[in-house]
């Protein structure tokens, strides 16, 4: 069995198991599972850049939230949900393209700073442009179509979309284009001397990543029926990045593990204290010090050590 068929088989099993979840989970837990899927897509979109192009973005929360804003704004203005979703995703891709135009020439810490600053500008605009964005109060609208009103139906639809999107992203990073991105991650100068247009590849990679973040943000609009500046705030980008890191940068589907871990943690913490932000910060600090390769990577490394020591014993 090749690596690819193995991944696809495991993926299909995972989707099948996920599809059965609503039969055993409570309404509230199905809501959480939906959230895990949505943020899993966001974390994957961050992973396209972090894991495959070697660029850590702190602006993806803003790109995600732009789509949420557009969808809620358009639907409450009377547009059809499908049209609004399309426009939301388009808006995110355009914002990502603008970010990309500025950021493709930078790398490492500079890339991080620039995406951070750009994301904060989006946040600042959402906060101040009260006429359109509702300022600090945000926009509220019961925008979810009636056929998706049932939480289980909504979950299954989101799951189907997530499966398609995950497959698309997986194909994308395995395509010749994705391999070029990996080449850029490993050695930019080598790819340049081989004749690849490095900035163009990064630009397209960033825009595609923004497109997927926009898909997540658009679905989130229908899930949450509410958007406020905190949806585009730095905390959103940070949470997304943390999910990617916890799941393991470059693992792609680890994003769902990361999203599940962070969302579960958030819910446990929030039921006991209002200090989620502190816990998020401390989690970030601990992961950076103890397990920068992510929990999945950490567990894998530990297992590897165990199996190695076993085999050395035998």
């Amino acid at each position, binding site marked *: 069995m090749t690596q690819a068929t193995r991944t696809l088989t495991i993926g299909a099993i995972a989707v099948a198991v996920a599809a059965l979840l609503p039969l055993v989970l409570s309404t509230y837990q199905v809501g959480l599972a939906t959230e895990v899927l949505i943020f899993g897509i966001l974390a994957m979109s961050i992973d396209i850049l972090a894991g495959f192009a070697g660029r850590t973005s702190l602006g993806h929360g803003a790109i995600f939230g732009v789509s949420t804003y557009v969808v809620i704004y358009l639907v409450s203005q009377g547009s059809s949900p499908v049209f609004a979703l399309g426009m939301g995703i388009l808006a995110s891709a355009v914002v990502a393209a603008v970010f990309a135009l500025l950021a493709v*020439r930078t790398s490492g810490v*500079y890339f991080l700073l*620039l995406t951070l600053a750009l994301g*904060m*500008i989006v946040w600042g*605009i959402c906060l*101040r442009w009260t006429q359109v964005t509702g300022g600090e109060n945000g926009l509220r609208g019961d925008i979810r179509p009636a056929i998706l009103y049932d939480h289980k139906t909504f979950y299954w639809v989101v799951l189907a979309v997530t499966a398609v999107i995950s497959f698309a992203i997986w194909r994308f990073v395995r395509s010749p284009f994705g391999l070029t991105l990996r080449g850029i991650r490993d050695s930019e100068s080598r790819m340049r001397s081989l004749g690849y247009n490095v900035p163009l590849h990064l630009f397209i990679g960033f825009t595609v990543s923004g497109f997927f973040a926009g898909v997540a943000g658009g679905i989130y609009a229908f899930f949450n029926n509410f958007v406020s500046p905190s949806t585009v705030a730095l905390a959103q980008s940070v949470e997304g990045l943390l999910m990617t890191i916890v799941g393991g940068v470059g693992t792609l589907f680890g994003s769902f593990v990361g999203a599940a871990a962070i969302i579960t943690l958030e819910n446990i913490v929030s039921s006991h204290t209002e200090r989620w932000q502190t816990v998020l*910060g401390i989690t970030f600090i601990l992961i*950076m010090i103890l397990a920068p390769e992510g929990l999945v990577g950490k567990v894998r490394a530990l297992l590897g050590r165990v199996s190695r020591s076993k085999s050395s014993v035998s």
Partner: protein
Amino acid sequence: MTTFQVLNGLTFAALLFVVASGFTLIFGLLRIVNLAHGALYLIGGYIGYTVGVKSGSFLLAGMAAMAGVAFIGFVLDQGLLRFVRGNDLRQVLLTLGVAFVLNDMALVIWGGDSFTVPIPEPLRGAVTFFGIFYPKYRLFVLLVGIILFILLWLLLHKTRLGALIRAGVDDAEMVEASGVNIRMVFLFTFLLGSALAGLGGLMGGAFLSLYPSADAEILVFSLAVVIIGGRGSLAGVAVGSLLVGLLNTFGQVMFPELAYFVIFGPMAVLLAFRPLGLFGKAT
């Protein structure tokens, strides 16, 4: 723009200079992008506010703000950053985690209300010159910015310590190889940079007021200043602060709701031509 608005821009630039010079010193020498810098600014402001209200002395408030924030900087550097030395990305993300914790702790201690640091009696009111009526305090901020620029310039260019810092910005390993304890220079710079954030918090807290998201706002401006000016350059910070301060004021007058957008333009143009900023040097 009227003279009044230009002065507003200049005084805001002076405040940005105070905050961003600390940021760029740390960035330039230690290669640490301290994203907790905004949170240090906010906490410095809050400490200054509390001490200022309790003691009634602006000077004491300033000293407390600088010392308190320098202490937090000490804990951050020695207690946390030591574990991730040498890895840029992990350092940045760690300071981001610290920023979240500090911001939330500030919310616990000082609550969500907005505060204004009390201005000392001699600096209250306004002066009239060239036919305009301008608040004394804001001129004082401008003065502090200029004095700080001169002091930092003297420190960096006329003292042995400054020579070590400049040498460290260019090549820390060579400085260490020549027998200097560069760790101490690093620590001093980190404390100085943090203290400047605290000072900025006090200065800014008296005319921009302090509230839970003020740290994020000042951080964006500081980032813009450093992105425009380039890492580790005093002249870069000064020019960057002037540009960002004036553009922001201009933006607020012209497009009140999209003021943020106006600092974005020059950053974009600049990055297209100089990805490392006006005065930035490649490492």
